[in-house]
């Protein structure tokens, strides 16, 4: 799975043309979930979908968007949106706020531990995310 907006936008360009809706794709359609202004570079916010799934959306200092599951496989809590972005080598990463495991944001893999405590692989689902010109204010 590839992240669709990775190569596209730079924050300033986008602001200049007034396009700043952050959208994520749930496999069926795109949802506009917030505006770029709602995100602080380096940090994330949680998004609640109609089916109660939770997604964590981030923007980094360069303006690249990321979206992954909000569920932390190690603690079982919906908290990853409160983690910190960073890098390991040249890979962008996210650190869980609970027990501080670090995930690779390019493929969702945990770099510290291959499996979660329940034995399942510790991999986050990567959600397609993009900036778009739609004017819808939210998922609902």
């Amino acid at each position: 799975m590839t992240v669709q907006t990775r190569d596209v936008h730079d924050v300033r360009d986008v602001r200049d043309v007034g396009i700043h809706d952050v959208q994520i794709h749930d496999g069926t359609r795109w949802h506009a979930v917030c505006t770029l202004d709602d995100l602080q570079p380096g940090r994330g916010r949680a998004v609640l979908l109609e089916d109660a799934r939770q997604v964590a959306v981030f923007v980094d200092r360069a303006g690249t968007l990321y979206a992954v599951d909000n569920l932390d496989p190690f603690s079982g809590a919906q908290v990853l949106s409160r983690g910190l972005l960073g890098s390991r080598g040249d890979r962008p990463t996210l650190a869980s706020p609970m027990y501080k495991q670090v995930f690779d944001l390019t493929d969702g893999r945990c770099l510290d531990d291959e499996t979660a405590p329940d034995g399942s692989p510790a991999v986050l689902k990567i959600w397609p995310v993009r900036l778009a010109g739609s004017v819808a204010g939210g998922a609902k």
Partner: protein
Amino acid sequence: MTPDHRALRDLVLVGHGMVGQRFLAAFTAQPAARGWRITVLAEEPWPAYDRVHLSALFDGRTAEDLSLCPPGFLAEHGIDLRLGDPVTAIDRAGRTVTTRSGAELRYDALVLATGSVPFVPPVPGKDAPGCHVYRTIEDVDAIRAGAEEARTGVVVGGGLLGLEAAGALRAGGLTTHVVEFAPRLMAVQVDDGGGAVLRRKIEDLGVTVHTSAGASGVVTGEDGQVTGLALSDGRELAADLVVFSAGVRARDQLARDCDLPVGAHGGVVVDEHCRTADPAVLAIGECAQAADGRVYGLVAPGYQMAETAARTLAELPGEGFTGADTSTRLKLLGVDVASFGDPHGTAEGALDVLYSDSRGGVYRKLVIGPDGALLGGVLVGDTDAYGTLRPLAVAGKPLTVPAEQLVLPAGFANAGPVALPDGAVLCSCHNVTQGAVRAAVRDQGCDSVAAVRKCTRAGTGCGSCVKMLGTVVTEELEAAGVSTDKGLCEHFAHTRAELYEIVRVTGIDSFSDLLDRHGSGEGCEVCKPTVASILASLGNGHILDGEQGALQDSNDHFLANLQRNGSYSVVPRVPGGEITPEGLIAIGEIARDHGLYTKLTGGQRIDMFGATVDELPVIWRKLVDAGFESGHAYGKSLRTVKSCVGETWCRYGVQDSTTLAIELELRYRGLRSPHKLKSAVSGCARECAEAQSKDFGIIATSAGWNLYVGGNGGMTPRHADLLAADLDRETLIRTIDRFLMFYIRTADRLERTSVWLERLEGGLDHLRAVVLDDSLGIAAELDDLMARHIGGYQDEWAETLADPDRMRRFSSFVNAPGTPDPAVTFVPERGQIRPARPGEAGRSLTALTGPNAPVLIAGARLEVLTP
């Protein structure tokens, strides 16, 4: 592997004291020990404990803290320890011993380690109620119980133990006298000059010293209780408690009774392999007279005998024990005293080199042989040089620098570092030479003092050699070209302390700037919060503003503590643990209205659990309106200053500990540091606030405040060190200011003060020099930084509530503000909530986002089961 019991031989150890335990440790480490079944017969009701630190019981440590017998040790080696059942007789012909309970045990080898008993001069009244000795845990309990009722105590004996006892009485609040037969204190260890300086220092502490005077009788009242002590010079001292500490006598009665030879002054006679005249019987420690004809009253020679006896029984070759260095370094009543080698200059042609500063309370004497070799010395008031001088004296090598340079105070002396020969013994407790330490670093890959301690055991006894060890380890590591990677993380090659300096000097005020100029990559969960903390320590505005907000750990980000299910807990500040009934009611009401779980913390405040991020501002609005402010439980910053009620209420208190605690908590609140900071203030030496387990703890004395630093509870407990005694309020606060700022400036990330202090080059003495004597010339700067912190303090929560921009983060979902996180669920337990466990059907609490939202109580929504 089950050993064949028929082939096992029986080893019986009599006495489970310090030396006995050491013998067990040394012997069981030998493969040969597997051929033995070991039984230990002990008189005391406790497994071996650290008698040397017995006085620690007076300042809050427990018998368990002093234990020398690691848990599991006995079981692991199949040792049968019988407490409270002393041996009463030895039958050497039949090779059996009989115990008080009537048990009879056979032995193939018998080891006597019965120690000694305090010597009580045979004066009238010596057994009256109110008379004590000082050797066991029970003695301490009895003295402590006696001290509760007593006002004045007299210690008979001005030697090492006597002064320890005097310190204990004084700490218990008694007017204290010391009576010493000799013309000076510590006659064995120090000379007249040193004794005089020591006396002056001890008298400054409020202990009255009477030298050249013996006890001639104990005076008792009608009820038989002690009322005073008659002296040989005809005077009488009023006292209601007497401690005899006039030396010890070897416990050799068992040996005498079975006709084993004992020395003229007592002590079972042994050869250099610790065997008595009967090859099946060995004797070690204070009950033995060693091959050199001496009975040693110190633990280090006893330990060497224990090692020797273990080798003898394991039939290993070895030089045996032919005598020991009786150098000692002590802290008596807070006064440093050391004596080493031949302190009295008894050798022919020996000359003294002397420095004496009566005003400063420093005395140093070196004894130099005719060939220029250092033979011994006495140090009072400042024993820093002990670590270098003692090995030199023991090695007997000529000095490489003029002797006078070694006694002069720093500043006059320009001696280079003193070079020690490799054969010099660095650690006398474990007989480890400098060469062995160097080899451990070089050949066995030890890269720290901790590793060397583990590998060679150097430094694990009295600890007086640790500083010297550090120097040698560093030297050796540097010589080997090892540069330990001290960088914070892959993004910064600098330590936290270096980054602090960079930020302070350059005035850089953002993470991006620092990363671009001094680091690489995007940063991570290690460097971001660290830099955020540095920026905050240096007063760069609210921690949630601008880019700083993006650096904080989740706790700081929401100004609350993340709990296991993703909910948060909230702790308002309760300075000094003092809270009004109104305050309690306000907290109670808020917790009740939001259905929060409440629990008292160890730091004397109230923790409320179960809030979702949406609720945090609502809860805090109410708390701020009720007069509360952030307790910073979420930050690496000052937590609480715990206190007891002190003089105001407590019968024993000597100062107002609560007022001081409140003042300190308000002064240092919000101060960001490398790790959390805890503190406490106790109103007297009884130490109810447990100040000695804190990063900085204060204990009231009748003359002022004692400041302890570097304590820790939790996973790696550490007793705090006394930094300074009897300070007035102003000096105390200035000293704490500097201590904290110096720590913040130089500590590593997540390094508590305890670890920092152990690592700090020069240790406590260096710290003292920096904060009390401004040895680095930075005191003004540290004071200024603290003044800036205090001036700039704002309540983070009040400020956050006032700023819509900062408030935006407090919603669970960016696309559904006001919807609480449905994944955060609870179940009832004991009338409150707790997080639902996986598989449990929990329910969420209502979000209370508007002022008119319905207020629901946990009990109303969740069925509460009371057992």
